[in-house]
Each structure stands twice: as C-alpha cells, then as structure tokens.
C-alpha cells in the first residue's frame, strides 16, 4: 500500500517538475528569441545605414559627374580629367568610365568607352570599348539608357581593371537637349563591404551576408558555416536591390538554456530518485512501526492472559470455606505490573490448613514465572509433607537446583492444625507476619535465607498455639515499603496501627488497603502488594481448659505423670489404651528432659502443661536445662533384627507414633516440646 502511494507521489512530483521545466524552457526560449531579434535587427540596421551612406555618396558623385559631363560632351578629351577628379575624392571607386552610345563620336568608332582605373601606381586612363567589349548589351548600359535612372549592376570580376570583385553604378549622361548619349559608370570595390558586413555578428557563431538582387554574394565572411537550425533576418538596402542578412545558429542561441535544462533535468532525476529512496525508507519505517505496535499489542494481550492464568493459580473466592466455622480467610494480591512475583496459597488437607505467602525478587514476567513454579512446588511438596520445615527445605532444594537466573523467593509457610490451633511455620527470608492474639505483635520468626540461594540448607520450623479468635496477618514488603510521593515507606508501625479492633478478615484487609492507598496518594505502585489474613475461630478452643504439673528432674517423680494423665483421661472420658499411650508419650518426653537436659547432680524443674480441648489435647513440656532437641535424635529403625537393634532411641520414636504432632523449640532459655493428640 505504501509502495503504491509512494510511486504515485513520485510520478506526481515528476509531472509537476516537468511541466514547470517546460514552461520555464518555453519562456526562456521566447526571451532569448526576442533578444536575438532585437540584436540582429539593430546591428543589421546600423550596417544597412552605413552601406546606404556609401552607396548614396557614390550615387551622388556619379550624378554630379554625369551632370558635369553634359557640358563637356563637345570636348571628349576632357572627360577623363573630370572622372579622375571625382575618383580622387572617392577612394572607394575602382573605375570611373563613360560608355557612349553607338557611334556617338564617329572618330572613335562605334564603341567609345574611356575608363580611369585605380591601379597601385595611380589613376590610369584607357579606352576599352571595342567589338570584343560590346557594352551595348550589358545591363549597366541598357537599364539607365532605358529608364533614365541610376542602376546598380550585379557584382562581377573586373578582369580588365582592378582585378577585383566590383559592382557598377551607372547613370545616364544627357546632352544639353536632354537626350541620353551614354552612361557614366563607377565601379565600386566590394572589399570594404566585407569589413562592414562581417561586423554584423550579434553572436559568436552568427554571420551576415550581403547579396545582390539576383542572389549573388557581394560580401560574406571568408567561410560560412552551415547550421542545422538557424534564425535568419533580412533587410533590403535602399535602391541597390541588395539584401543584408544575418544568420544566427539556434544551437548557440539556445545552447545555454539547453545546457541548463539538461542540468535541471539531471538534478530533477536525482531529486526524484532521492524522493523514491525517502519514500521507501519512510514506508519501511512506517511498516516497522506498525509491526512494533502490533507486536506490542500482542504482548499486552498475552500479558493479560498470563495475568488471568496467574490469578487462576491462587485461591480468590472469599470466603473460601463458607461451610466452616473454624476458619476465616481473606487475601488480596495487587501486582504492580500486569503480572507479578507475589504469591499466596492455602488449602485444607486432613483438617490442617496449609498456607504460604512469598515474594519473588524482581517484578514482571520473569518474577511471575518463578512465582508460578514456587506455587506449584508448594502444592506438590505439601501434598505429602505436613511439616512446614520440610516443605520449605524441599522447596529450597528444587529452587536452588534450577536457579540459573539468580532469582530468589522470600517465603513463609505455615501449617495450622484446625482442630487444636497448633500453628507450625517456617520462614525463608520473608517479612515476619503479625500475630493478633490477646496482644498484637510481630510473630517471632527465624529470618533464615530466601529460597533458591543456599542449596542443602535445613530450614527450622517454629510453632505457636492459636486460640479461639487469634489471627495471623501475612504480607509482602509491597505493604510496608509502599511509597508515598516523598518516597517514604508505609512502614511497620502504620501497618500495626491499621490492624485494630475486632473485625473479620475481609474488613481487616480492606482497612489496610484504605490505609495504604491514603498514604501512597497518587504515587505509582512501586511493588506487588499481597496480604493474607487468617482468622482462627475454632469454638472448640473456646471451651478449653488447662492442667499443670511441675516436677523435679528426678526419675522418681515420673509416676506422678500417670495420675496427671489419669485425671485428664477421666475428664475427657478417654479409653484406657489411649490414656496409657498418652502416659507413655509424656513419660518418654519427661524422661528425656531428666536424662539429657539437666546434667547429673543438678536440680531442675520440668513443667508439664496440658491444654484440653474438645477434640485435642496439647502437652507442652518445658525445662530450663541445656538445649536438647529430642526430635533431632536419630529415629529407631524397628525393622532391624535383635543383634542390630540399638538399645536406645525408642522413647522419641514412641512419642512421634502416639502423638499427631511433635515439635521442639528453644525459647527464652527453655526447651519447649509441644505434643498434640487429636481425639
């Protein structure tokens, strides 16, 4: 389309240029022609006047002489003297002569023609009239005799006199009675005319000629060129019948503008070619631009689809579990670009809520790809793994393996047992969530390193017990680092302030959203912003009770545990074998503390707390001894034969076997072992 338009433009431009050039050429030619006309005419006229000047003077001299001669007809010997006198005054005249009519002077015969000829040595008189020189039939004799008027002859070569090309002017000679008795002739040399005529030369190669009545050349340049095309001007010379003409070669006249026209044509072609190039280039650029904008549109379209896919990966229907009274979740994700690197996810498996929040380094498409991978890995790994520590460790392994682009993910993963409020969590370099219980505080987390940085790293998990109405608020740094116009951060304090009052998860997030929006104002969103609010509402926990037992680090106090468990079992009406198992687990846990946490001989206390809920029992064994983590001890392998079986390691094995959840943490100089049994 552009090519056709361009071609049309070029053709139009060419047409316009050509028409302009033609008009210009036409007018230039006309002007030159006018100038040539006037120059030729004026030069010709000037020369014509000069020639006429001479011819008139010759005519006048001849008339005067003929008039004077009539007085001397009776004395013919005087005639040559008169002629000589005249010739002395007029150097142009080559010969002066009188030709008398047939037998006018009988003594001189039929032909009498005395001639004075100008020779280098002077004027010489001679008589040439004879039978051989029979002038009675010559023009110059007949015409004046017949008409009585002067006559200019055709030029001829004067072979008798000056031996030059001459022309004769003859006038009749009358006697007293007025009868014509002969003619007086003067021969005029034509050399001087050559000079005059050659001066009529308005252009370098122009030339002029003087021709006689009959077209014989009188004066001409030594050599005349012939031209293919020429302009010709003519002018008659008074009375003589001569014609002066000027020939101007058109080549010379128009050569200049032809040259200019050629140059202009050349420039025009050059210009047109340039125009074609420019048009082609512009067309190509235009097409390129269109391609770019087309591909940009395509990319934007694909980004929209990608966003759709990404958003479909994360749970977005709220409330997610309308049939459940024990949990209320609300989340929001707001990518800074079409697609983002933030993620959150949650789902319930075996009465446990698995949830996570993460932030991939960077933004946009690369981050979104890593986000998708992280989310998929989380689902895959957590499908058969219920320890957040193991989930995070496993994720880190996978992410480190394929991390060729040095992208990392800050990640927080939690597993909340909905039956008993036990929340185990593991952090990988992510912002510590806020825990909202009786207080409002930042959840104590191990900072650790983000996923994808240190392969082989073991991530430790942590634990906290949630009670009825406790909540946990997770977020990405897009919240705390939301910038206002002055590039100040929203910050942790504003975030904590916004989390106030007893509200549902949804209103909490909406409040937070409003707080951030009013803080940020019109500043552009600098990072993806994701929030996840989990509200634990298990009524079961509301009717909970607690039991405490404090013993010394003395094996002999172990039997007290039996009574402690017995009391709980009675209260919860547990069957005997479960009661025994609980007793067993508790004894193993406490024995471990007595044996390993406190060095031999030192006195210490072991605190046993039981949280009794509708559907779960939580035992928390804590001591102030040296750090001892029974969960990190090697597991007994019960498939081994007698001889290979080690003596120890059975205790913690049985604890794990009996309890649904066992976890250890060291906090405030205490070993804290939490064991939960769902009932």
């Amino acid at each position, binding site marked *: 389309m552009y090519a056709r338009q361009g071609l049309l433009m070029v053709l139009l431009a060419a047409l316009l240029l050509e028409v302009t050039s033609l008009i210009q050429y036409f007018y230039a030619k006309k002007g030159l022609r006018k100038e040539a006309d006037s120059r030729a005419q004026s030069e010709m006229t000037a020369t014509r006047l000069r020639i006429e000047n001479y011819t008139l003077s010759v005519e006048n001299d001849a008339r005067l002489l003929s008039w004077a001669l009539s007085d001397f007809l009776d004395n013919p010997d005087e005639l040559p003297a008169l002629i000589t006198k005249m010739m002395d005054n007029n150097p142009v005249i080559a010969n002066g002569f009188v030709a008398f009519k047939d037998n006018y002077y009988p003594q001189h015969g039929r032909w009498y023609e005395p001639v004075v000829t100008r020779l280098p040595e002077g004027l010489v008189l001679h008589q040439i009239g004879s039978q051989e020189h029979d002038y009675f039939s010559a023009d110059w004799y007949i015409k004046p005799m017949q008409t009585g008027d002067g006559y200019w002859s055709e030029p001829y070569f004067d072979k008798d006199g000056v031996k030059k090309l001459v022309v004769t002017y003859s006038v009749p000679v009358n006697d007293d009675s007025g009868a014509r008795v002969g003619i007086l002739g003067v021969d005029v040399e034509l050399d001087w005319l050559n000079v005059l005529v050659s001066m009529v030369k308005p252009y370098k190669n122009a030339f002029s000629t003087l021709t006689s009545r009959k077209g014989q050349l009188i004066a001409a340049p030594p050599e005349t060129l012939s031209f293919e095309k020429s302009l010709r001007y003519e002018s008659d010379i008074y009375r003589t019948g001569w014609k002066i003409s000027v020939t101007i070669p058109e080549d010379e006249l128009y050569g200049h503008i032809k040259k200019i026209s050629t140059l202009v044509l050349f420039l025009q072609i050059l210009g047109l070619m340039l125009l074609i190039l420019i048009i082609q280039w512009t067309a190509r650029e235009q097409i390129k631009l269109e391609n770019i904008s087309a591909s940009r549109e395509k990319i934007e379209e694909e980004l929209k689809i990608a966003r759709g896919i990404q958003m479909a990966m994360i749970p977005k229907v709220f409330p997610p579990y309308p049939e459940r009274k024990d949990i209320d979740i609300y989340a929001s994700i707001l990518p800074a670009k079409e697609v983002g690197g933030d993620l959150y996810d949650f789902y319930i498996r075996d009465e446990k809520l698995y949830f996570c929040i993460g932030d991939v380094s960077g933004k946009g498409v690369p981050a979104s790809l890593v986000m998708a991978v992280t989310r998929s890995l989380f689902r895959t790994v957590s499908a058969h793994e219920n320890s957040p520590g193991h989930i995070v460790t496993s994720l880190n392994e996978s992410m480190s393996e394929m991390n060729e682009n040095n992208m990392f993910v800050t990640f927080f993963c939690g597993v909340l047992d909905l039956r008993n409020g036990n929340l185990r969590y593991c952090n990988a370099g992510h912002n510590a969530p806020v825990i909202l219980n009786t207080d409002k505080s930042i959840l104590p987390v191990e900072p650790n390193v983000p996923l994808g940085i240190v392969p082989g790293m073991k991530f430790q998990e942590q634990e906290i017990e949630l009670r009825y109405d406790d909540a946990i608020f997770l977020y990405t740094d897009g919240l705390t680092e939301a910038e206002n116009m002055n590039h100040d951060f929203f910050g942790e304090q504003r975030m904590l302030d916004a989390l106030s009052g007893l509200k549902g998860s949804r209103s909490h997030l909406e409040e937070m959203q409003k707080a951030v929006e009013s803080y940020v104002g019109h500043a552009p969103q600098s990072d993806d912003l994701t929030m996840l609010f989990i509200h634990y509402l298990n009524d079961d926990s509301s009717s909970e009770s607690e039991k405490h037992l404090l013993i010394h680090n003395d094996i002999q106090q172990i039997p007290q545990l039996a009574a402690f468990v017995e009391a709980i079992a009675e209260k919860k009406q547990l069957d005997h074998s479960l009661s025994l198992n609980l007793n067993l687990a508790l*004894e193993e846990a406490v024995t471990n503390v007595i044996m390993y946490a406190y060095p031999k001989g030192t006195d210490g206390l072991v605190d046993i707390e039981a949280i009794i809920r509708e559907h779960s029992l939580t035992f928390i064994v804590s001591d102030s001894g040296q750090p001892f983590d029974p969960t990190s001890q090697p597991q007994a392998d019960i498939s081994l034969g007698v001889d290979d079986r080690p003596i120890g390691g059975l205790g913690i094995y049985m604890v794990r076997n009996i309890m649904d959840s066992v976890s250890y943490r060291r906090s405030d100089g205490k070993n804290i072992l939490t064991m939960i049994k769902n009932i």
Partner: protein
Amino acid sequence: MDITIKTQGTETIVTFNGRLDTPAAQQAAAQLEPLQEKAGGTIILDCKDLTYISSSGLRIFLVLRKAASQNGGTVIVRSIGRDIRNVFMMTGFLNLFQIED
C-alpha cells in the same frame, strides 16, 4: 512393681506385676542383671499382670533378648495383655520375641 524370678533347670520364669515405668525399670534392671548369665537357657517373661511399660522397660527386655541371642538361648514373652501388645507392635518388638499366650 513386683518382680519374681523362678529358675527350674535351664528355664527361668520372670513374673512382672504392675507398672514397668522408668523408675521401676531402673530397679528391675538391677534385679534382672544376673539373668544374662542364664541367657543360654530359656527365659520366660510372664506379662500377665504387667499393666504398663515404657521404653526403659522395653530396654530390659531387649538386653535379655540380645544376651540370649548371643548365648544361643530363648526368650519367651508370655501372656501379654492388649495394651502391652500394642506397645510391642508399635516398637516392632513382636518380631523380636517369641510370644506365648
């Protein structure tokens, strides 16, 4: 915890009565230590009245079993109740001992 030990020829019968928890196991370990010398014969551990056993108790059983294994003897666990059987199952002890009703 009461433990009685009766030896008839190469056969020794140990009868447990009560809870074999950690402190009881410490006491029992001392009491049963000489039996390791008789591990070449048959040791019958009568658990009819054993109501509870923790890992410390199991440990005593395992020690005897290892000694028997080394000396070519036999350890028979007799008349275990449902609760003790559960513990044996949990720990894989059912496979280590010859169980008799």
